[in-house]
């Protein structure tokens, strides 16, 4: 099966093509095609993983299949796949979440006027995402990188009648594209200095020390720019919260579990580059750390259920990126996997809630646990998992990240702080949504549990949110860390003190949320009033959007208007000036022609006329006068020819 893995992405692509061209009008069939294709891809991915787990050769498993599509001298573009444990892991994550989201969408998107198209886009996304994780070179990953961006754009703006949705899609596309500028230049540098885009060749050359110092660090940071855009890290994070305008299954699949994790995947894939460049790795770690606390702090005070989850996603991605920057390859990827499951579950649960109450505002909810048992239970499981409560999967992966960060105090403190905030905002969300009394009676009355197509994926993902982390229990001898690793497999030492510390921090967060939002022992309003400036700053997300609008967007538009005027007035003005001055010159010439040139001609005519009138006077008509004149002429000619006079005259006028 492993040598057939390249087929996996083509299954959803085939479904996409079939839906667009043939079954667009038949909703059930369209959905069935997409689900079927992803299900087969899921099974194939599992088989691949099992086969790879059965490999017991030297080092890690690696299989590359590729062919060239363009070659020019030292320039080569190839299409191909690289299968290794990292790819196998990502295949499982992507197909699992994608399959669950596909099934869930049957219920969630029921009755939408563009139902078939939704499944077509989901299938297209799945194709691109699978291509991204299977690619064997930087050129190809960039192709799929952009394609997932396209599908993200299409799906965020799926309800494009809403201006905010269309705007959000555009914002997502352009913001990530800014990160991709850096990525592009990084790839160009790779082509220039290493002469190849192929992963294995690039990593071999870097491991052999072909590139070092400033050039390597620059290249590493530029490649990381791509990850910053895609994984919505500071300062390019602004698109992800807005992307929540998309349908909720999309938020779960693309903007929580898979596409936004592509940045993390890219860093993991390029680990050799970052490990060779300590400065580059430090940039990665710092950006990840800043994002994790920055986003978590915003999530503390937001009221839109999906935006809270979006900021949570930012924060957790920052966690993973920080871990990778600190060399925690296994920890980052482990958390990527567990996060994919519990965050997808959280989003799908949020979708289930929104489906029931038709609002995103958690202040309008409350008491929903009585109406939506399955949603409530699964949501709380996921919340416990993300908060890092033993023995759920989030506990194990988060613990590895904290263990990675524990070597440097600042990273340790921030990661514990983020763990505290995470537990707090998640349980603030849970209590406000599910417990207490309904704050909007109308919405509450109409609330109901979602259909089975939606609850089954919730339950399935809830199971994964509990058990997926067990593969990485530190006491296991052949666990996650001996499968997905960089360099040499390293065994994580169980750090009991850290485990206890992170659990305590999480419980504190949950406890505080319990006091504030369940028991009401501490009034949230009073807290907000007491820390008003901080609250306002967090509520307005540190005013980053406003800042970008003033510093980037407005000036760019001013520049476009200025240049357009410049083009019309100056450049084209110059062209037209030439034309009009040519015309004016022609007018002058015309005048000159009429008055001077023609004047001379006419004047000559006049002179001739006058001369002839004068000459007429000597035309006497008498023969004797004529003969006299002839005689005079002959004498003159005789004189001239007989003397040197003629020569003298000719010499004088320069002819001789």
């Amino acid at each position, binding site marked *: 099966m492993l040598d057939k893995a390249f087929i996996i992405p083509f299954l959803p692509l085939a479904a996409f093509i079939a839906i*667009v061209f043939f079954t667009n009008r038949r909703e059930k069939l369209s959905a069935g095609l997409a689900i079927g294709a992803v299900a087969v891809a899921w099974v194939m991915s599992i088989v691949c993983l099992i086969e790879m787990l059965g490999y017991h050769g030297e080092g890690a498993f690696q299989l590359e299949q590729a062919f*060239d*599509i*363009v*070659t*020019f*001298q030292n*320039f080569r*573009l190839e299409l191909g796949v690289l299968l290794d444990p990292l790819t196998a892991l990502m295949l499982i994550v992507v197909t699992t979440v994608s399959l669950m989201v596909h099934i869930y969408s049957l219920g969630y998107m029921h009755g939408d006027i563009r139902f078939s198209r939704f499944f077509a886009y989901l299938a297209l996304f799945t194709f691109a995402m699978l291509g991204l994780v299977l690619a064997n070179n930087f*050129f190809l990953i*960039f*192709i*799929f*990188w*952009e*394609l997932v961006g*396209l599908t993200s*754009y299409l799906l965020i*703006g799926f309800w*494009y*009648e809403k*201006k905010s949705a*269309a*705007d959000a*899609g*555009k914002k997502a*596309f*352009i913001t990530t*594209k*800014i990160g*991709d*500028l850096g990525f*592009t*230049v990084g790839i*160009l*540098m790779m*082509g*220039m200095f290493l002469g190849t885009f192929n992963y294995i060749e690039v990593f071999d050359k870097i491991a052999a020390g072909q590139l070092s110092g400033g050039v390597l660090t620059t290249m590493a940071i530029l490649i990381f720019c791509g990850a910053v855009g895609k994984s919505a890290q500071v300062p390019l994070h602004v698109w992800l919260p807005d992307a929540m305008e998309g349908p909720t299954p999309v938020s779960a699949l693309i903007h929580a579990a898979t596409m936004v994790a592509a940045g993390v995947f890219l860093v993991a894939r390029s680990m050799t580059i970052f490990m060779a460049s300590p400065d580059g790795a430090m940039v990665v770690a710092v950006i990840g750390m800043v994002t994790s606390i920055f986003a978590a702090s915003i999530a503390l005070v937001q009221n839109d259920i999906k935006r809270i989850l979006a900021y949570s996603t930012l924060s957790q991605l920052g966690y993973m990126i920080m871990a990778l920057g600190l060399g925690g390859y296994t920890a980052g990827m482990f958390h990527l996997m567990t996060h994919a499951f519990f965050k997808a579950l959280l989003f799908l649960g949020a979708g289930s809630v929104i489906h029931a109450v038709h609002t995103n505002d958690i202040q309008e909810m409350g008491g929903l646990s009585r109406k939506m048992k399955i949603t409530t239970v699964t949501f709380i499981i996921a919340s416990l998992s993300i908060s890092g409560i033993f023995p759920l999967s989030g506990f194990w992966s988060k613990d590895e990240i904290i263990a990675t960060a524990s070597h440097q105090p600042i990273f340790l403190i921030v990661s514990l702080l983020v763990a505290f905030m995470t537990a707090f905002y998640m349980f603030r969300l849970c209590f406000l949504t599910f417990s207490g009394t309904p704050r909007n009676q109308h919405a509450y009355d109409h609330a109901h549990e979602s259909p089975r197509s939606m609850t089954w994926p919730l339950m399935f993902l809830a199971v994964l949110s509990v058990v997926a982390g067990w593969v990485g229990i530190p006491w296991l001898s052949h666990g996650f860390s001996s499968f997905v690793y960089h360099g040499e497999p390293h065994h994580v030492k169980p750090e009991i003190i850290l485990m206890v510390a992170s659990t305590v921090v999480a419980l504190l967060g949950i406890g505080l949320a319990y006091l504030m939002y369940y028991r009401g022992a501490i009034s949230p309003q009073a807290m907000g009033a007491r820390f008003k400036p901080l609250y306002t700053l967090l509520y307005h997300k540190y005013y980053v959007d406003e800042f970008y609008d003033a510093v980037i967007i407005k000036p*760019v*538009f001013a*520049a*476009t*208007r200025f*240049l*357009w005027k410049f*083009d019309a007035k100056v*450049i*084209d003005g110059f*062209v037209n000036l030439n*034309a009009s001055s040519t015309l004016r010159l022609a007018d002058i010439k015309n005048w000159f022609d009429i008055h001077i040139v023609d004047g001379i001609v006419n004047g000559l005519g006049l002179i001739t006329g006058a001369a002839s009138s004068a000459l007429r006077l000597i035309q006497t008509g008498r023969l004797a006068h004529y003969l006299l004149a002839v005689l005079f002429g002959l004498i003159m000619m005789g004189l001239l020819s007989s003397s040197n006079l003629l020569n003298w005259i000719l010499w004088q006028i320069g002819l001789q």
Partner: protein
Amino acid sequence: MTYSFPILSFIVFTPLLGMIVVMLLNRERVTAIRWMSAVFAFITMIFTLIVLKDYDSSTASMQFMESFNWIPSINASYLLGVDGISVPMLLLTSLLSLVAIVISFNITNRVKEYFAFFLLLECGMLGVFVALDFFLFYVFWEVMLVPMYFLIGIWGGPRREYAAIKFFLYTLFGSIFMLVAILVMYFTSDPHTLSMIELIKTAPTFSRGVQIFAFAFFFIAFAIKVPVWPFHTWLPDAHVEAPTAISIILAGVLLKMGTYGMLRVSWAMLPQGLHYFAVPIAILGLIGIIYGALVSMAQKDLKKLVAYSSVSHMGYCMVALAAYGSVTAIAGCMFQLVSHGLITGAMFLLVGVLYDRAHTREIAAFGGLANKLPVFTGIFTLFGMASLGLPGMSGFISEFMVFVGSFKAYPIIVGLAVLGVVLTAAYILRMIQKIFLGEFDIAKWGGLTEINLREILCVSPLAILTIFIGVYPKPLADLMRATLENLVVLMAR
């Protein structure tokens, strides 16, 4: 390569024969005129496909050569031939001409003259790409202008006369520079010759001053056609006023002639001039990329937006051409020519489709058309994405090759040129949003009809090729490889 059949002459003169046939038809028989034009354009395309089939891409030498002594007193000969850079241009020209003719079936005013002029135009364009003698080249170059002038001036929009005259005079202005440069080449060569093949061999031995002078003159002539910033202002006017089919030809073929001319003439013949001017040319290209994109963003007229996007897209070609040492860059330039021809040609076609129905091109007048015209929206979005360089389409491959190829020579310029990609994304997505997304005004646009079968048939070959080249560029690359590798050697002299 000897070929028993003068196929290049057939390619060039089949449209001319078509023109004569069309002129002989009764002007009332509109349908016959349309179909006859299409048939002749189709036959021409078949001939170009035969050339493609029999072209030997393993060698850089000229193929399908035809030669006879035409005007012995000035050594001008009728010399035709093709190599790896002219074959793709021939194919592009014949395809776009056919598409343009079929999309022109809705022309109702003076149909006979329209198609006659169009076929004459096609003859001139094809001639430019096969002529290997300067005299002949110049004749074809000028022959195009006349029908173009009338096609814009008679069948164009409200300001057609201004646009037609501007186009005509601007191009003619460039032609004068070309004529002077050709005369310089002729009188400097010993023995005097107008044969490009000879001049490619001997012109690099000219003194540096002569080369720089001739290069500059040729450059102005070609730069106007490309158009290179700041010689571009004829383009938006001509595009906006021209009828749809002519916009397709302008963007798809005429702009390519400038770049083709550079590669065929000044780049290959005057390496000293090239080396002298390379950096300024790269800078002009960069300015064109950024400036064109920013000005596009400010446009309110859809067609003008697409027109300015051409200024930006052709800037990539100039950056690539300035990196003359890299086969990849020159190949990227060639890919960009083909790709831009397909994509922008299709964009103008689609703008025309919308204009025919809505009778306005003002972007702000639209909104939410995706609901009413899903198929049109899908096709338009596809080409919009192609235009902003989405991977999987030809534009991405060409831009990527341009970047990779030129990066070594101009890291800073290329680093800045990459910004153009984001700006392009911004104006394309804004345009798509404003026209297709948002609220649909049913009272205003409820009567719009979906793109029809004829229009879909016209645009689909362009779509298929755009995706095919984007996914599998190898055939096009292989077609050009030998020629380009040889060209890079010539340019390094």
